[in-house]
């Protein structure tokens, strides 16, 4: 600690923002090292302001700390409210992700044993992300459901945010499983467009029915169509080039439908299946 101190007049001018640059620079350099002069500034600062900030700080220190996905999202520039919504999505909790990963790992192992099971894996792959979307809105599992029902928050926005979050997490898991497959690598990506198409269709259907029912309808239709083709060995019918273009068209169509009807439909998040 130095014996030299800023004189009271200099401190007063600095604290009021009236000090010229040389004095301010000098004062700031000194303040870093001198507790006495730092204390002397306190009397020039509005006590109500100090108290008000203290209360805010205490409130935030006492509040539960956001979970790390939430903090990561906030760091990436996502709004606090959106980050909380995404983090509260049931699908994104550990057990669900583990479940999806586990099922896929099992399927990959089975596919290496038997050629026919490989085809079944392709049929099953889009169901992973789809199930994730359904779970995200299953009433009993969503911790924010009661709040969501009462909050004047656009249903479609909630739907899209959560669907995007679910896809962002589940698609890489499925893709990793696909890369572990034996044989040609186009198989590893063949399910992507069907998944996009099924998801968009489910989203479009959610204007008419609850999310869980919509996903169930789409998933059932997919299984009914894809399983026989895959078992019969006509993989091209569901995953060939022509089929991929068809899936792309369905995905774009579903997206357009959502965009066009966004102001007129009500998403029934309230009633869950």
């Amino acid at each position, binding site marked *: 600690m130095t014996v030299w101190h800023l004189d009271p007049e200099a401190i007063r001018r600095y604290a009021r923002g009236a000090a010229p640059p040389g004095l301010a620079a*000098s004062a700031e350099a000194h303040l870093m090292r001198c507790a006495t002069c730092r204390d002397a500034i306190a009397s*020039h600062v509005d006590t109500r302001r*100090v108290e008000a900030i203290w209360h805010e700080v205490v409130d935030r220190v006492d509040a539960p700390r956001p979970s790390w996905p939430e903090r990561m999202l906030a760091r990436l520039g996502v709004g606090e409210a959106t980050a909380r919504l995404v983090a509260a999505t049931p699908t994104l909790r550990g057990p669900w992700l583990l479940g999806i990963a586990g099922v896929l790992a099992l399927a990959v192992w089975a596919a290496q044993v038997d050629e026919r099971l490989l085809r079944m894996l392709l049929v099953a792959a889009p169901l992973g992300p789809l199930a994730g979307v359904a779970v995200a809105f299953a009433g009993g599992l969503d911790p924010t459901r009661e709040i969501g029902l009462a909050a004047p928050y656009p249903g479609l926005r909630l739907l899209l945010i959560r669907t995007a979050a679910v896809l962002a997490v589940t698609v890489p898991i499925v893709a990793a499983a696909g890369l572990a497959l034996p044989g040609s690598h186009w198989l590893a990506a063949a399910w992507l467009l069907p998944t996009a198409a099924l998801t968009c269709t489910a989203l479009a259907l959610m204007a008419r029915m609850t999310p869980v029912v919509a996903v169930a309808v789409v998933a059932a239709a997919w299984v009914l169509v894809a399983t026989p083709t895959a078992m019969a060995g006509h993989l091209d019918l569901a995953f060939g080039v022509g089929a991929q273009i068809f899936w792309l068209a369905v995905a774009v169509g579903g997206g357009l439908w959502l965009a066009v009807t966004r102001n007129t439909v009500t998403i029934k998040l309230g009633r869950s299946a």
Partner: protein
Amino acid sequence: MLTRPPDPRADSQLLAAIVDGDREAFAELYRRHLPWLLVRLGRRCSSPELVDEVVQDTFVAVWRSAGRWDGRGEVAAWIWGIGIRRLVDALRRGRPPADELTEFAGVETSAEEHVLLAVQYGDVGAALASLSPELRAVVQATVLDGLTTREAARLLGIPPGTVKTRMMRARALLRERLA
């Protein structure tokens, strides 16, 4: 919270106590360090609301990361480092500074300040005062506040290239004046 008998502990001891969750120590640290931080940040940002927000963030960060203080140097300098970077982050997050920061226009140096400056800086203070506000703001952000070029650019609301050229010009001028 402000009317308490003074706590005899040093800043570093307070930080150590904060790591253990000592709220009293935190209040004491806040009482000691909030006022100057408020004033110092206030000189670098034209919006008092934003400054309030930033010091709030800073002390929440101090509470949470007290364990990360490496024990070297002044606690005040550590807190300042957190504070000024939070301010830069806050400015980057969208709310642009009201206008380009070239604070402290209208300089007029009194005799007593000359004495003060002579004590702390000698001729440097006078040379600094003779710079244009634009150049001075850059010197202040990079040399005195310890910011990187990019951070200084965000704080001042000018491109990083401009910070570099202004810094070069300021250095040349200071060299000339002090020669």
